[in-house]
């Protein structure tokens, strides 16, 4: 605990830890000092001078070295002749800060007048209008007249596309460098910079494509003016017209807290529509950030044209048909559910399957949940608390692509002094921030992890870590590989389980894979053979679209019932289709991979002719004579809490609890943290660790390494792909790009493949076209195939690559 410092601000006595900046100390005391360039999540730079205040420090008598006293015995104060910036000055004992004196006010006001000399005053058409600190400050301090000559206003480009996602209006920029500093210091993607000097200063992007960072949207939140705006929301509504609904991002297992801004709109036929996704502060999950996948792909799939829906009568008959099929099949039914379902859905599904005696499987490309439930993060863990003496190990995962906000959080942990070890088969963006980078040949994942403890420095970092967190992913691995890897990783954690800030985290590909595992579901080892001749009930998954072999397996099934929100290859071949409501249209909870249960709330009314998944299960239950809760998600959670040990004590009321968080985001105040929303509807609750004895962690391997003159294809993930929840995001089309394969140049040379050249990939019985991309960091003989790009790949397997005929 840092030393405490006493000072007074505007006469209010304040006690804060040593090192606190004056702005922050004032905010803690409820006093707003106006800022532009200072952001509580970034180092101060003192660039804008908006935070001018008077600061007095106790004078020291030079002769005695003792504090000088006034005649009346009070300490003598020494004020600087000029105003000082509150954002760059740390507090000191006995300091006196005056923020609202005439002198300070005059300084703040004049600064504003200078800033406004060249501001275009576009407020009527500016997307920041209504949530803009420059507007707020002008209302607070600004004079209605300027002493500057109007004709000398700076004129600059108003339509600069920093890439296709973010627009820059150069006239509005006040050169605070928040965007540049965010990209450099917080995101670690320094793709923005200043160009030119003085009044010509301009924001430019150095990357190709422009603004090539998956965190770019956050700069539009923290930009204190409307200089940076998103192409996604552009002119979508005025900020004051929008309603807020607390929700979660469902694009990855991080579970970022978001707020959906909604509005009733004519364009959408007079219904409520989601207009934009904004971060909602949760310092333990996503702080005040979200990634571009969450912001720009976010909810768009829930509005896709391929949404399913049935009128009341057809829905009823579909339910009856499904119930008949299940009743006929009984234990010959197989349930297959994707990780997009909520905890409540999984619970009802499990109950239904159990009553029928049917098997229920999770549809996931990654296994190892039995380890993450037993060795997972202890209650109260927070990646934001990791620092000196702590160790984080990331194995077989490219977090920047798979769970971007973790990338950002681990980068910050490394900066605070945590030892970050990244072990992967190829170079990832996190390498740059790691203390140790371990490169292995694909196929050696498990061996590598087993060998880590024996290494000199890395071994010490793992063994002597005060806290140890291990992330493992599915880069280059299928079910068998990830399961073995999870076991090996869990082994490293022996003796540390159940402690705060210690544990194993699976980098899943869906928002609630962890929840499914916690509720006892797991993937089938050999799914194809499980489906043959069975009545298969597929929920929120598209096996047929992912893999032609699974499509064949489904064809060999007795009957297929499909339940989804969108039309997919699976729903097309199903005998009965049950349309489900999207998560934005109902309530529920997800369990993040960090084992935090979080609530999402209703944002828009359910699309006509759909029902929440848990309600569909309850309806089927009614027809099959199984009593299930289908009235509300809250009631289902009450049942879960009563019956599932890990969920004991969880209720919707507890999930909605909030405690004070720092920094204060403050949308409307003058201490400006950005347009992200304050969290008023719940920070979530950590699950207790599964009490079942942990499975054995030893003796599992199973690798596939390329032999001489043989190629092995391994699955890897890219942030933007053609999966069902991504493809409908039209704005991201360019970034998604075409199917590609990664090759070592040496391997490529043997095959006569050029970088960027077209190749034919023959894998898993499919021949597909793809672009070859060279990557020197991967082992030879390995071909990286990106998941969800139309080339089926679930496990490492052999592959043939031939150069495609030049057209």
């Amino acid at each position, binding site marked *: 605990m840092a030393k405490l410092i006493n000072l007074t601000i505007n006469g209010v006595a304040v006690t804060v830890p040593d090192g606190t900046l004056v702005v922050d100390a004032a905010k803690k005391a409820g006093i707003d000092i106006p800022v532009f360039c200072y952001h509580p999540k970034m180092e101060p730079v003192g660039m804008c001078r908006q935070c001018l205040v008077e600061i007095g420090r106790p004078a020291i008598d030079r002769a005695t070295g003792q504090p000088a006293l006034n005649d009346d015995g009070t300490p003598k104060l020494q004020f600087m002749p000029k105003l000082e910036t509150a954002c760059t000055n740390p507090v000191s004992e006995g300091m006196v800060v005056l923020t609202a004196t005439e002198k300070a006010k005059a300084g703040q006001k004049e600064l504003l007048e200078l800033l406004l000399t060249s501001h275009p005053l*576009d407020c*009527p*058409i500016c997307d920041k209008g209504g949530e803009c600190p420059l507007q707020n400050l002008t209302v607070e301090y600004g004079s209605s007249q300027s002493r500057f000559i109007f004709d000398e206003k700076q004129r600059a480009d*108003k339509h600069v596309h920093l890439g296709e996602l973010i627009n820059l209006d150069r006239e509005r920029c006040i050169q605070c460098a928040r965007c540049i500093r965010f990209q450099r210091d917080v995101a670690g993607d320094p793709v923005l910079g200043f160009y030119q000097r003085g009044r010509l200063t301009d924001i430019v992007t150095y990357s190709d494509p422009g603004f090539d960072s998956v965190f770019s949207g956050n700069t539009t939140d923290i930009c204190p003016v409307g200089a940076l705006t998103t192409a996604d929301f552009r002119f979508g*509504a005025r900020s*004051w*017209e929008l309603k807020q609904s607390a929700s979660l991002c469902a694009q990855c297992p991080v579970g970022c807290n978001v707020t959906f801004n909604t509005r009733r709109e*004519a*364009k959408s036929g007079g219904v409520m529509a989601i207009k934009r996704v904004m971060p909602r502060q949760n310092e333990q999950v996503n702080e005040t950030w979200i990634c571009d996948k969450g912001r720009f792909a976010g909810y768009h799939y829930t509005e896709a044209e391929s949404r399913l829906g049935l009128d009341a009568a057809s829905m009823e008959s579909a339910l009856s048909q499904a119930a008949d099929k299940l009743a006929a099949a009984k234990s010959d039914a197989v349930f297959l559910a994707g990780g997009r379902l909520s905890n409540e859905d999984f619970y009802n599904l499990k109950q239904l399957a159990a009553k029928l005696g049917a098997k229920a499987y999770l549809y996931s490309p990654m296994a190892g949940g039995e380890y993450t439930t037993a060795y997972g993060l202890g209650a109260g863990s927070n990646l934001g608390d990791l620092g000196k003496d702590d160790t984080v190990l990331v194995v077989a995962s490219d977090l920047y692509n798979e769970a971007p906000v973790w990338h950002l959080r681990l980068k910050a942990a490394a900066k605070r002094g945590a030892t970050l070890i990244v072990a992967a088969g190829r170079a990832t963006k996190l390498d740059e921030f790691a203390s140790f980078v371990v490169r292995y040949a694909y196929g050696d994942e498990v061996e590598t992890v087993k060998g880590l403890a024996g290494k000199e420095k890395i071994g010490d970092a793992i063994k002597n870590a005060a806290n140890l967190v291990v992330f493992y992913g599915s880069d280059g691995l299928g079910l068998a590989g990830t399961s073995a890897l999870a076991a090996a990783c869990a082994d490293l954690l022996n003796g540390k389980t159940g402690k705060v800030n210690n544990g194993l985290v699976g980098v899943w590909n869906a928002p609630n894979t962890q929840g499914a595992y916690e509720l006892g579901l797991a993937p089938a080892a050999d799914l194809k053979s499980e489906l043959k001749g069975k009545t298969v009930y597929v929920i929120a998954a598209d096996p047929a679209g992912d893999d032609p072999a699974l499509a064949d397996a489904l064809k060999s099934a007795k009957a297929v019932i499909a339940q989804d929100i969108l039309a997919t290859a699976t729903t097309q071949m199903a005998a009965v289709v049950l349309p489900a409501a999207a998560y934005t249209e109902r309530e529920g909870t997800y369990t993040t991979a960090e084992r935090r249960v979080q609530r999402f709330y209703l944002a828009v009314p359910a699309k006509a002719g759909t029902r929440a998944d848990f309600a569909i299960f309850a309806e089927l239950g009614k027809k099959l004579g199984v009593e299930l809760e289908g009235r509300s998600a809250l009631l289902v959670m009450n049942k879960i809490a009563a019956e599932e040990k890990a969920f004991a004590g969880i209720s919707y009321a507890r999930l909605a609890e909030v405690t004070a968080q720092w920094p204060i985001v403050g949308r409307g105040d003058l201490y400006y943290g950005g347009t992200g929303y304050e969290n008023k509807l719940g920070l979530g609750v950590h699950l207790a660790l599964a009490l079942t004895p942990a499975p054995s962690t030893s003796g599992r391997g199973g690798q596939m390494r390329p032999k001489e003159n043989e190629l092995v294809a391994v699955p890897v993930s890219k942030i933007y792909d053609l999966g069902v929840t991504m493809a409908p995001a039209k704005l991201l089309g360019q970034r998604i790009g075409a199917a590609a394969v990664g090759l070592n140049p040496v391997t490529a040379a043997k095959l006569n493949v050029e970088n960027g050249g077209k190749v034919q990939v023959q894998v898993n019985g499919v021949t597909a076209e793809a672009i070859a991309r060279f990557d020197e960091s991967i082992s030879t003989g390995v071909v990286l195939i990106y998941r969800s790009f139309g080339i089926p790949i679930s496990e490492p397997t052999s592959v043939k690559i031939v150069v495609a005929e030049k057209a």
Partner: protein
Amino acid sequence: MRLVEPFLELMTGMMTTLKMLVTEKPVTVQYPEEKKAVKPRYRGRHYLTRYENGLEKCIGCALCAAACPADAIFVEASENTDEKRFSPGDRYASTYEINMLRCIYCGFCEDACPTEAIVLGDNYELSFTDRRQAVYTKEMLILPVPQGGAPTPQVTEPGKFTRSVPEMKDPVD
């Protein structure tokens, strides 16, 4: 004399009536055949105005909707391009509706408008047989294209209409 005084008073009154009857013209207006001119600042049914070149003045900023105490206005904006330009600058109102049953004709919308696009006119003859008819759409509110102007959307020269809000003088009546 107690009888004479009231009688005289009555007669004086009757005389005034008689005098008015002969000298004054009747004030009753034979509406609707005959209509009364309204005062210059009368606030009647709104219209949306255009520039001389036919471009719409409204930039879809929704400040009128924000100012409206009766929540009578609904605005939805979209983006202009030089190939399809409705108004100067980036933004135009793709939907603009006023519910005349909600409107209290206060004129706040006119005051709030940064481009003098919405103006309250002198038409007070609003009657409906259905509530829905009271919702005036942009097509109903916008003035016809002035002579020499072109209808919207227009194809315009790039770089010419970059500003939404023109430099303006203080309004007079």
